[in-house]
């Protein structure tokens, strides 16, 4: 969102500094073991980056994307087993992304991740189209997130 004029005070506080998240040592040998791959999509960059870092520590291979289109672009090369995506995002929402990727990769497992109660309409629309995706409510403890992804793998 672009605020023209000088008067609106954005509620973000100060802009987030770009973070370098440390990669665990095991990352160096990731090609030796076939790790499950998670594509993490959230327009909140800090949230996408920290979630990816946590999942890497939990033994997943991860890629973070900050909007639906770059997620689509990267999916082809990254070849994910899981999609973990926010719902309310500009341009392309998480459901649209999930539906598109499901059609491209039928084996892809999907977990939605949302902080808003007011997404009932979007969910209803997708279920009318025949798509039901599990949903986690933000905020969620990192351990719970990892468990949910693992449970998805076992199902």
């Amino acid at each position, binding site marked *: 969102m672009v605020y023209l004029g000088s008067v609106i005070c954005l509620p973000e506080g100060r802009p987030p500094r770009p973070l370098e998240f440390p990669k*665990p040592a095991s990352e160096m040998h990731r090609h030796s073991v076939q790790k499950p791959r998670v594509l993490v999509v959230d327009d909140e960059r800090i949230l996408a980056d920290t979630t990816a870092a946590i999942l890497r520590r939990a033994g997943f291979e991860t890629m973070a994307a900050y909007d639906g289109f770059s997620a689509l672009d990267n999916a082809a090369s990254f070849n994910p087993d899981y999609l973990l995506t926010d719902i309310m995002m500009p341009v392309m929402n998480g459901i649209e992304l999930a539906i598109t990727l499901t059609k491209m990769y039928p084996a892809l497992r999907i977990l939605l991740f949302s902080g808003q109660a007011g997404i009932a309409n979007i969910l209803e629309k997708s279920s009318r189209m025949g798509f039901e995706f599990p949903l986690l409510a*933000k905020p969620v403890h990192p351990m719970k997130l990892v468990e949910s992804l693992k449970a998805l793998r076992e199902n």
Partner: protein
Amino acid sequence: MTQSKTGTRPDRPDLSIEGIRNFLAAIIASSDDAIISKDLNGIITSWNDGARRIFGYVAEEMVGQPILRLIPIELHHEEDFILSKIRSGERIDHFETTRMKKSGEKFPISVTISPIKDESGTIIGASKIARDISERRRLDDSRYRLAAIVDSADDAIISKNLDGIITSWNNGARRLFGYEPEEIVGQSILTLIPNNLRHEEEEILRRLRVGDNIEHYETTRLSKQGEIREVSITVSPIRNAKGEVIGASKIARDVSNQKKVERLAIEAEKIATTGRMAAAIAHEINNPLASVLNLVFLARQPDLSNQEIRDFLETAESELERVSHIARQTLGYYRDTGKPSEVHLKDLMENVLSVYRSKLLAHDITVESRFTDLRKIRVRTGEVVQIFSNVVCNAIDAMPHGGTLSIRTTRIVRTEGDAIQVVISDTGSGIAREHLDKVFEPFFTTKGNLGTGIGLWVAKQLVERHGGQISISSSTDRGNSGTIVTMTFPFRGAEDEGVGSGRER
């Protein structure tokens, strides 16, 4: 000419028997009433012009005929009674009965019958003065009919004179206000008007005197028990036969129930707005909270350097600042007590914009705002946040594929007192011309199942409660479509709400 014959002076009445007889004959001939004389056997002895007009017979037809010819057969017994009264020297005053015209038509009549005596005082006959009262009967009938209608009406129907004194009081008025007619007729209409609304009566009387009608004016009145009655009143001037205004009729309808329903609808919408805003706020708060959870979790991992830990914690700190900022901005209005307070309207607008920040972002909507209202204004903040929220939500809904939301607040100078004007415009799909008139009506929506149809209606009620106005203009022209909502909030608006007006809960 008469004076030269008789030799009397012009300023002196002719008191000769001949003169008096002529004088009386002239009166009888010119009377509108029928004046008939008869002897003691009931035979007609004289018949004036009035009798001809009323009964249809000329004198030649009737003189010498029995009076019974004028009386319907079933009433012939009346004549025996009349004659017996006359013989005993009694007079019959304003006896209402039925008589028959030459055409056979029966009609109502009022008769006064007096005995005629000769010089010695012997009764020799009767004079009969008869008046056709069919017109009066008709008027009476319609008056009784109107009275019955007035009395059976559910509405209070009251008449008063130009001094504001109550002159009639129907059953509906008794039910609505609790006074019996005996208690209130003759009292001032001000008895019914709350003290703080007494100026209304002067205005009503002023408009009545110039002959204006006042229609469906919504106000409040007091019952005998001192309870507030919410009424819609219509006042019309009452004119006399010359067309002069001599008073007013006032119809008051109890709209308390209707008002109660309206207030419930407003309350329901407030809850719905709160729900919508809470969902939006939840999103704004849950995202940074989720980041903080992740950052703290990462910071306590065992294999990190101090620098890495510090970086995580600093980022967590700034995310927490963001949460506090949003909470301060968006949750503040929940503390609204319903009492007016001094605020900058731009602050309230910014609160609303921060609540819907994500939604605006998700819809790719650019916000352009220019706030030049530097003066604080006294408003009920919760209500104004609701008004802005409703209008901004409509703008967002109108721009599902992006656009520009433009917001201006300016101070405007007017003769009736300065105000702040708020203009919210979007570049959305616009509202069709045929819908534009209805957008402020309750339960009108163009959003199908997604709309409740009361957002703008509630906005209008709330703006008006602040003494302001709201208007809307829109275009659906392709490439140039959009909607502009203009609101004014007078600087002295919220304070003016009368204590006794019954609009406060």
